[in-house]
């Protein structure tokens, strides 16, 4: 531990999703004093995924929440600390540890691994915000069961939308899967299941432009993007899965961001700020998968460990 800042952590991880928790696991196992900040719930996007079937080593797949809880347990078992605090700023201090400000207080850490991930996008249409929790949902695994034998809409065309549409069929009498393009982005296997499911009806080239209801969702208005024709569907719920935006506001002014707001890092997850690493969905990359997020986290933690050793922090 540095003599200058006896209170400083060796590694602070900002974001407790797959990338962050894996980074913390590697940090803690390197016997580094490691602190994880989580703004919302640990596990990140994986905590709201019903079934993870593409993580190697789970032939039957694993429930996303179970995966997240196992990972948290594993990380805490090796001694990393977890705090539910919303980080407001990461401040490099020349020749001294980083200062990390949360809404609750300030912390110091010699290395910072930013893994704040991405948040689900909203449609930004009338009725959406007003009816959140009363039929508008961003988590089918949380809320689908409240719509037993009702008709519902799922919006989106990626893995998340298809996965959630399939899950929703356990409860809903019918699922309208509405996608603005004429093909899905989802993996071929998920698409096959969607098209084979008798409860799912796919509506391509359409967007939801209004959600209406007195107390709860009653109808959704669709517009066909090619013909301009509108169509009102009576539904009990609208589940929205239309991509994500990276939580990179903390990195603005610190590191280079691409057009989408992702941080540019090298192969070791290093930024141009010594001691600051970025991993997972927050960085520029092609594959946004749980397994690659975890891989990023491990790479970043190993790079952080090498950085700390080079600085002579915590040796002997």
């Amino acid at each position, binding site marked *: 531990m540095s003599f200058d800042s006896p209170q400083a952590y060796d590694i602070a991880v900002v974001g407790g999703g797959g990338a962050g928790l894996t980074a913390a696991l590697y940090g803690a196992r390197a016997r580094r004093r490691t602190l994880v900040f989580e703004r919302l719930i640990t596990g990140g996007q994986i905590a709201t995924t019903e079934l993870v079937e593409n993580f190697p080593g789970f032939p039957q797949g694993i429930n996303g929440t179970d995966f997240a809880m196992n990972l948290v347990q594993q990380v805490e078992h090796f001694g990393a600390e977890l705090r539910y605090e919303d980080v407001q700023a990461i401040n490099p201090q020349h020749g001294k540890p980083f200062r990390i400000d949360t809404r609750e207080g300030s912390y110091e850490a010699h290395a910072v691994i930013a893994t704040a991930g991405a948040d689900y996008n909203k449609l930004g249409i009338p009725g959406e915000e007003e009816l959140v929790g*009363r039929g508008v*949902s961003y988590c089918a*695994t*949380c*809320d689908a069961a409240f719509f037993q034998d009702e008709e519902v809409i799922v919006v989106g065309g990626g893995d998340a939308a298809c996965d959630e549409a399939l899950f929703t069929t356990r409860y809903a009498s019918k699922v309208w899967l509405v996608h603005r393009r004429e093909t899905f982005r989802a993996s071929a296997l998920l698409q096959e299941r969607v098209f084979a499911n008798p409860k799912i009806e796919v509506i391509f080239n359409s967007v939801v432009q209004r959600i209406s209801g007195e107390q709860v969702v009653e109808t959704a208005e669709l517009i066909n993007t090619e013909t301009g024709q509108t169509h009102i569907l009576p539904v009990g719920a609208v589940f929205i899965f239309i991509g994500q935006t990276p939580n990179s506001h903390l990195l603005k002014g610190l590191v280079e961001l691409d057009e989408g707001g992702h941080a540019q890092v090298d192969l070791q997850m290093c930024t141009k700020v010594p001691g600051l690493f970025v991993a997972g969905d927050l960085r520029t990359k092609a594959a946004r998968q749980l397994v690659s997020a975890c891989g990023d986290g491990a790479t970043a933690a190993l790079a952080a460990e090498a950085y700390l050793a080079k600085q002579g922090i915590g040796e002997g």
Partner: protein
Amino acid sequence: MAETSEVTDATFEADVMKSDLPVLVDFWAPWCGPCRMVAPIVEELGEEYAGRVNFYKMNTDENPTIPTQYGIRSIPSLLIFKSGELAGTIVGFRPKSDLKKRLEEAIA
């Protein structure tokens, strides 16, 4: 960490409506992943507010009456009651600091 006590349709009146202290009820279900991830945050709050606010959780699978009465269509939902009246509703998962702010407002 102390696990939050359960409240049911049968005990809701006594534990929540007739409580002298404000009460926060965490509506959850075993199949709701985020509910399980929110539980440790609610437990932390429960410890921080011990003696000021009573904390309960209600399983919406096992208790059909109260969730319906309060129009719960999304979980996790945290409802805050003060003097037998609904004083605040928080739908979905929010940062712990937001939860504290909403809780403070509701019990003020």
